[in-house]
């Protein structure tokens, strides 16, 4: 398997506060990788660092290209799409505009076809295509945010706590869809607190604690690890 994303000695923070103290991890092409961790462990910061939204040092390598030092708007062009925490849709724009803006960086003429595809995958979005995104329910907004991110045809999709604030039944449906996406060939890097659900669809996992990787391994192995079960699965 080819290595898609290779992160080495990643350090990042906000002003004088350093959050990540040099972490290493990688994502292979076609994989689903999950990063677990408690509040404040640095999960969101990791994704923001990859995307060039905060000052970062170390190395983030995407198929041979270095992302550290790139502008957030350029990272998308290099093939990384990011669904930030709290959905990150454009509340005042219609559902269809949200999808269009997701394809902002594309210059090919298959944008309309892709939109059709996502409308087929998520029919509820088609029904509401002329409504503003802000009027959708939480689960619908999360779907829209994912579809919007995929409109950029990324090689890697970053998902920041997609389960946050959603009802359990919607969350399990959502993760099923993520698994489907992965089956269709999208590589996923998910950051989650809901360890059981995330490890359920993941190939591999990392555990982040206070800005450092404290454990890693195949998903089923992490699921059976005693200390992880205690800390993140509440068993």
């Amino acid at each position, binding site marked *: 398997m080819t290595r898609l994303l290779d992160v080495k000695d990643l350090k990042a923070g906000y*002003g004088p506060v350093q959050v990540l103290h040099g972490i290493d991890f990688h994502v292979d092409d076609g994989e689903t990788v999950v990063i677990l961790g408690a509040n404040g462990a640095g999960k969101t910061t990791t994704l923001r660092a990859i995307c060039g939204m*905060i000052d970062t040092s170390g190395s983030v390598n995407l198929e041979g290209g270095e992302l550290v030092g790139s502008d957030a708007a350029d990272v998308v062009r290099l093939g990384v799409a990011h669904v930030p925490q709290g959905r990150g849709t454009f509340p005042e724009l219609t559902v269809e505009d949200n999808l269009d803006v997701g394809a902002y960086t594309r210059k090919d003429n298959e944008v309309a076809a892709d939109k059709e595809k996502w409308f087929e995958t998520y029919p509820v979005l088609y029904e509401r295509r002329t409504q503003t995104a802000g009027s959708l329910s939480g689960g619908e907004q999360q779907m829209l945010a994912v579809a919007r991110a995929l409109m950029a045809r990324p090689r890697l999709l970053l998902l920041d706590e997609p389960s946050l604030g959603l009802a359990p039944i919607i969350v399990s449906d959502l993760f099923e869809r993520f698994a489907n996406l992965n089956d269709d060939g999208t590589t996923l890097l998910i950051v989650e607190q809901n360890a059981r659900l995330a490890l359920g669809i993941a190939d591999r996992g990392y555990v982040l604690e206070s800005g450092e990787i404290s454990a890693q391994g195949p998903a089923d192995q992490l699921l059976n690890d005693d200390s992880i079960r205690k800390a993140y699965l509440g068993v």
Partner: protein
Amino acid sequence: MAAKKILVGSAQHRTYKAVVWGLALLALVLVAFAFNDVGQITLFDNKYNLSLTRINKAIAFIIAILGLQVIIGYTGQIALGQSFFFGLGAYITAYLVQDQNWGYLSTLAVVVPACFIVGVILGLPALRIHGLYLALVTLAFAAIFPSLVRLDQLFDITNGSNGKSVESKLVAPDWLPLDGIAGVLQGIPYFGQFFGDGDLSSREADRVWKYMLFVAVAAVCFWLVANLVKSRPGRAMQAIRDNEASAAVSGVDLARTKSMAFGVGSALGGVGGTVYVMELGIASPDDFSQLLAINFIVGLVVGGVASLPGAVVGGFVIALIPDWASSTQSVGFVPERWLQGPTGTLFLGALLILLTFFLPGGIVAGGRKLKAKFVSLVPQPPDLPNTPTAITTDDAVDDDVDLDAIERANQVQTT
């Protein structure tokens, strides 16, 4: 050069403070006599007026800017219409003194509550909505002030476009030996020449008397604001400025605190207007336009936002620079045509933008940095062995810890 370290609270610190205050007081007295009739500097063939009239005008502006410090500097509410209250105060004083035979200073009994109430009313939008709505409303009211006082219905009170002049003069009381002091100062060898060439005329004595009155009024205002800032409501104001949401959840009554800040700040604007009329003897509509409102903002920013000395510096800047710019008739290579016209305003605008970029803390912050090279005040180390050291940062903030730099670093990171 290493800065001399002075321990806060030590005997050395007390001496230092006494010397600084003593020098300031001495300067205030000397200024009164020095700039009375020879207040003029000549630089490259241009004569710059520094008479007591200018300084008295500056004091009026200083008090108004002090009011802005309360609203913008300490409470973080962007209100731009201080000229409205300045004008209101000026007209109330002019009317009461001229038509109702009040004494000048007793008009403050009306000016202060009136401006306080109007200030609270104009501040109302800021209680409901965030952002720049307050700036918009206040600037609009600053813009309409001149046309308000020109209203036909108000002609009997405001005297319309002619302006309301006041005949009553402020006369220096006989018991004050101003002439004697001037004589003594003029008698000093060499330095005497800076204190005029002859005896004080009665007009000059009146001017010095006014200056002393104004300094006293300003001192009371500064004393009140300095105490307000340190008080419980003052800390609530600063909490709102720093983070409104967390102030609210910490139990700060937003509406009451903001209203109080608007009221106090606007009242100070009115006091400034009273002083202005006492000095000029006339209140005319176009003196209180939105241009003055923006000039007050210039003074606030150039002096230093959220700094009491900043108000002093700012008042002088906006009182002197436009005047000096128009008396500049020749500057080296600049063609004369470009020196005739609103050069002062251009200069203030440029100053405003440049300082926002390069010295966000204003001239006072620049001065602090310079001072830190010579004297640094060191906070007392904690006495008790188990007192957390963090407590002392409160004192350190007072002077020289460069919070701005940290703040800026934060902003760079997040943008």
